[in-house]
């Protein structure tokens, strides 16, 4: 079970044997009961600013996906990804007592496959088992987190030729428009988004440690003035 230091309650843990039975049956059922279809949405979005991303985020962390489950909700498929929180950059709630304590969370994203019906969402974060990303997250439906600004809140972690760990922009963010001066919803106290740097421009290609420092600093600055 998850310890008390975990970001989410222990409600998502389950017995391996029961899961194996369940998903074995699920695959049989899905083949019989569901038609073979998949959804592939595409999107146009406004490019999110770095401050805007941090403002809407309650947890910023490097995570590694561990497992995924998909389900229908109100006519759409969502995928629930259990992630290990490898490194917390900023968060709204107190940091766990021991930074080395394994922590986990469930991240909810649009798209996925249920049986042989699925939905692949352009512009949505795409979490791949075993591949770490820096995620900007906020609370979703009970027990889950969602990626802030969808795919724009995901930054894959890569190791470069010199063995340095860097953060890059995701390639699956959909079509992006630069923010207009007053078209986006913002706090009236904040500068116009067009005057602020975009999140991808601030983060892309930089060392993880540098990004971590900037995110923590921005989080403190922005959330302290909320």
């Amino acid at each position: 079970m998850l310890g008390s230091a975990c970001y989410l309650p222990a409600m998502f843990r389950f017995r391996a044997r029961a899961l194996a039975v369940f998903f074995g049956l699920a695959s049989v059922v899905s083949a019989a009961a569901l038609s073979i279809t998949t959804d592939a949405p595409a999107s146009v979005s406004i490019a999110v600013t770095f401050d805007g991303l941090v403002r809407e985020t309650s947890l910023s962390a490097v995570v590694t996906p561990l497992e995924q489950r998909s389900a229908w909700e109100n006519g759409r498929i969502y995928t629930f990804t259990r992630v290990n929180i490898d490194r917390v950059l900023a968060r709204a709630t107190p940091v766990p007592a021991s930074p080395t304590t394994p922590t986990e969370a469930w991240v909810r994203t649009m798209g996925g496959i249920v049986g042989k019906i699925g939905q692949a969402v352009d512009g949505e974060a795409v979490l791949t088992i075993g591949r770490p990303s820096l995620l900007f997250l906020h609370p979703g439906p009970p027990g889950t987190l969602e990626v802030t600004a969808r795919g724009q809140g995901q930054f894959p972690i890569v190791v470069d030729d010199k063995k340095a760990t860097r953060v890059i922009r995701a390639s699956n963010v959909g079509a992006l428009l630069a923010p207009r001066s007053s078209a986006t919803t913002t706090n009236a106290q904040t500068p116009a988004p067009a005057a602020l740097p975009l999140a991808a421009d601030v983060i892309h290609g930089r060392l993880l440690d540098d990004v971590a420092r900037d995110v923590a600093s921005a989080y403190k600055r922005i959330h302290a003035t909320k």
Partner: protein
Amino acid sequence: MRRSRAAVATLVAFASLAICSGDAAAFCRTTTKPVPADFQPSANACWTNGLPLWWRNSCVGYSLQKDASRQISYDDASQIIFAAFIKWTSTACPSDGTGNSRVSIDVHDEGAVGCGTVQYNSDQPNQHVIVFRDDNWPHNDTNNTLALTTVVFNPETGEIYDADMEINTAQQKLTLNDPVPSDGYDFASIVTHETGHFLGMAHSGDAHATMYAHYATGSTTLRNLASDDVSGICSIYPPDGTRAVAKIVTPSGKVASEACDPVPRHGFGPDCAAAAKKGCAVSPASPADLRDGGAGIFAVAAMCAIVGLRRKHRRGSEK
């Protein structure tokens, strides 16, 4: 309401002839597998895992939700969406020697519908609905998403079964004006881009293309297709009436289109169908349903199996 559009189509076809002579090949097609976050595209590299998507029928219908938007009236929206589709479906392609030059897919406005729900029913009537979200954007990222197109397809062939488009007017200001005002986003550009996705196009590496993933806010150039867009739509729906498909679908890599019938799969219905089989999902509705070994889900799954098998026995499976 169906529009007679022969004259418009002819005009646009001749206009597009002027731009279809380019040899750009940066266009990409949407496939059955999502692009992973760490995929690094280049100008001429597409994500090609999975099967490319395509409509089988030579005609595809769409319907605008009757309430349209407080920002954009039904009539204005209908006209602009129609014009956006026309740009794609009236494209003139390089001659293939058959005497035909226009792409072999047509799009019909099926008129207003009451249903504004994005869904695909595998055993009830459907709509290919285009809906504005004036009061509430029902998905994550309310502040940034402008439009979202959902394409339902068969992952074993890439055939598109259904497509719906949602436009976020709850948080964003869309405009019909040219030049685009400083606080708005060009509706026609957004819709022309989204209709490309509706037809199976993915983002292009050509910075001049309507399907390019990044474009200048305030520009209206995306209302018109670039040569790369033309190359893309011509490759999927060539004038000879075939569809370019994966070779695991047919060894020739081509499938003949079907005679014009814009009615969605399983019939057309202006109202939302009641939730049906999708409610009988075999995976958990949320992670919370998995606790305690998912015993409840196990029972539901068993019930689904029985119901599903009975349905399948009565009607046969989705082709």
